[in-house]
């Protein structure tokens, strides 16, 4: 079981949240080239390592948040509410205590 730390509810079973996938900064629609839009909309990095991803606390507080997860070890970094761009500290190895 993956324990995902919701910033409002606290650690929750990942099955109680909705995974929204990799998150990237949205390019400026007035400046972006078609290639940049295509990359933003369709291409994913899928790295073996730290990945910033979006989650939705669908069965709890209905909060959208992002966190960083190491795809090889399952470690998680502090969840961030929208607008907070600072990378968080490690808080969990993703397994049940």
């Amino acid at each position, binding site marked *: 079981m993956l324990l995902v730390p919701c910033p*409002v*509810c606290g650690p*929750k*079973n990942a*099955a*109680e949240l909705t995974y929204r996938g990799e998150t990237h900064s949205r390019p400026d629609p007035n400046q972006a080239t078609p290639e940049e839009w295509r990359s933003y909309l369709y291409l994913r990095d899928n790295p073996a390592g730290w990945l910033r991803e979006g989650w939705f*606390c*669908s*069965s*709890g*507080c*209905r*909060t959208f948040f992002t966190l960083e997860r190491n795809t090889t070890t399952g470690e998680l970094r502090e969840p961030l509410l929208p607008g907070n761009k600072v990378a968080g500290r490690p808080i969990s190895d993703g397994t049940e205590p």
Partner: protein
Amino acid sequence: MADPVFRSSVTSAETTSAESTSAAAVTISDVSDWSKCSVKAGEGTETAKGFAVALGTAAQRNGVLVVHHRQHEWLLLGSAAQVDETIHNLDRDGFVSTVDLTHGRMMLRVSGPRSADVLAKVCSSNFDDAFTPNRAAWGATVARVTCDLVRDDQVGVRSYLLLCDRSYGDYFFQSLLDAADEFAD
């Protein structure tokens, strides 16, 4: 015009027997006829300050159970008259909105010393006193149904209020009945 008639979404004929047979360890009762009203209020509004209920908790205010289960959102539970009075007295300055959920949500009360054991079978929340003490309020999936849960002990007896969408009512009741079966006397 005649008063509206309340009709529960729990249509199972077993409702009565379930209440009576599981009375000792666990009691599951349909309390959907309570008035249920959602209040959304922006940060800093007089309404938000007036409730004075911390996020994730519930408190009695003039006979109404005020549940602060989500950010900027409260749930008022109680008799129709008392909830109406509370709504009528809200300070409407700033962003404040109310929606009557009485007929859109169903509510069950699961009471008894083994009630936490029943819920633990169908919900991944931690029902230990340290995590969910009396008057705790939170959201979780119970029997695969998204619910709002409130611990509302009755005269020292452990008790939980569970709210979900009305359309799940019959299934939800039957699922809890199945989970409680092993604790029936």
